[in-house]
């Protein structure tokens, strides 16, 4: 199972994330988002944050979670490298994340993502895995 991959969208970037659990889907989505913006290989894990997100439903929660991470990048320069979901309900998520403060002198930066969108958003479950699709505004 590939934890995340991108798919084609003319102007923007689509991101598919998978996991055996819903918690894994959210953490893999974070990893996919970071991978688009900066090479994760060079990231340390010395900044620790608690992140919460709220939304009207689980799929909306994925959008809210990714947008919260984008907020933290702008507000504190923070990019996550490791993630653990500590609480997950239909409309609320809490996670502990460890990562680095992005520094173009130290990191191979890629492209800025403006936001995660609701367009074409999906969150589905097969027998053994969860899969989510989200389109990111570049």
């Amino acid at each position, binding site marked *: 199972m*590939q934890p*995340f*991959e*991108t*798919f*084609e*969208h*003319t*102007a*923007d*970037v689509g991101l*598919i994330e998978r996991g055996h659990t819903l918690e894994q889907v959210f953490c893999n989505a974070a990893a*996919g988002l970071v*991978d*688009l*913006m*900066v090479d994760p290989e060079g990231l340390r894990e010395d900044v620790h944050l608690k992140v919460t997100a709220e*939304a*009207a439903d689980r799929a*909306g929660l994925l959008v*809210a979670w990714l*947008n919260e991470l*984008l*907020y933290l*990048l*702008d*507000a504190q*320069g923070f990019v996550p490298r490791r993630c653990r979901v500590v609480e997950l309900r239909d409309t609320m998520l809490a996670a502990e994340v460890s990562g680095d403060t*992005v*520094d*173009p002198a130290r*990191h*191979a*930066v*890629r*492209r*800025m993502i*403006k*936001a995660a*969108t*609701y*367009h*074409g*958003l999906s969150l589905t479950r097969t027998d053994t895995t969860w899969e989510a699709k989200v*389109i990111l*505004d*570049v």
Partner: protein
Amino acid sequence: MSVDTERQPQGHGSSSLRPLDPYRWEIPSDYKPGMRVPGLVYADAALLSQIQTDQALEQVANVATLPGIVGRSIAMPDIHWGYGFPVGGVAAMRLDDGVVSPGGVGYDINCGVRLLAASLSHEEIAPHLRALADRLFKDVPSGVGTRGRLRLTQSDLDEVLAHGAAWAVARGLGRPEDLARIESEGAIPGAAPDAVSQKARTRGLEQLGTLGSGNHFLEVQRVDEIFDPATAAVFGLRHPGQITVLIHSGSRGLGHQVCDDFLTVCDRALARYHIALPDRQLACVPLAAPEGRSYLAAMAAAANFAFANRQVITHWIREAWDAVLGTRAAPPDLVYDVAHNMAKIEEHTVGAERLRLCVHRKGATRGFPAGHPDVPAPYRGVGHPVFLPGDMGRYSYVLVGTSRAMEETFGSTPHGAGRVRSRGAARRLLRGVDIADALAARGIIVRAASRGLLAEEASEAYKDVADVVRASDGAGLTRRVARLRPVAVIKG
């Protein structure tokens, strides 16, 4: 490791499109249940066949279902598949029973383009161009993880959000005469700083005067050809070879957060206002509702941040100019600054009626013609300039709006080339090609924060903007004034 999968979206068939003339195609209002007005696509046959390869036309039909929409759901020739609204879409709503949609403006509120014109020629600047490109790349922060050079206090930010570009000019970051050459004089009325969330404000504190990344850029150009010398002269474009500078940026993280905040508000309010949508990203609220008024006030504040952002970037450019060229040449003058992601309250004639409407332009430029009272005084005799940035390897255009656009598209015109290849497809096509080297061989200097990803923004990823101009001029929405070619490109 991310891998691109090969997936082609389902396109919109030609059977549902009715040609009105070689540049106008109608999507009848019975194409999709719930459409309140027809769709109208401005394109020639060649552009249309590109447009039909993705879901953009389906999105034009979706927008036609929104409450209060007037006239038609309009698609410009540079339309492409967006999220919710298509990029290159225009929709005007009645104020009493219509809606406003944050997705109809986009995450990058008041993303826009500003053109500066210098006094010197390409020949004169050529020996200094490398030094100027290096200096611009250093002085105008861009790319992931960079901070702006200004540190705003919360009260500074209040002033930026309320007064836009005028804040920067009052701080010495611009010339007083710049303000008359910005759409709405660089400040949208009705902006309410307190409608902007604390999170949005935090994102804005260190980002004023930064370019961003993706398709945002700063380009030093030379005038390649002048098609309408009289109008070009009014715009300060005097002869082929003259140097210009084009800036493409928006409201940065502050604007993205305002959009995100209000999409959540709208998403939750849909049921309360009994609005059913074909796509969740079209989330909207009545213009007359408190949420609608609040969004417009926050959007105006974010738009003002964007005007101030392009103003501060202009100041950094002028400083770099002075540092590199010294007394050889005065820093460039502002030609004009136009938004291409905005919702504006404007008066338009619809049928026999004069109506106040909320005009959404997402990836579309306001292009008001000669004589319109909202065209600033210096340009009232000819209409204000419209800029169509092309890709970094080819050219950009300066156009002017027409009275026909005023009658048909609420005074709206295209905004650029529009993508034709996804980022992944462009990277695959250009695997192994060093884009910066390839452009250097053609006399275009490139400085980029992430050089490896330049392929995503290469010429091959975009439509030829000349095709867009041909369709727009052909339909009578615009008139060509000049073409500009890049000589140095700064990318985030």
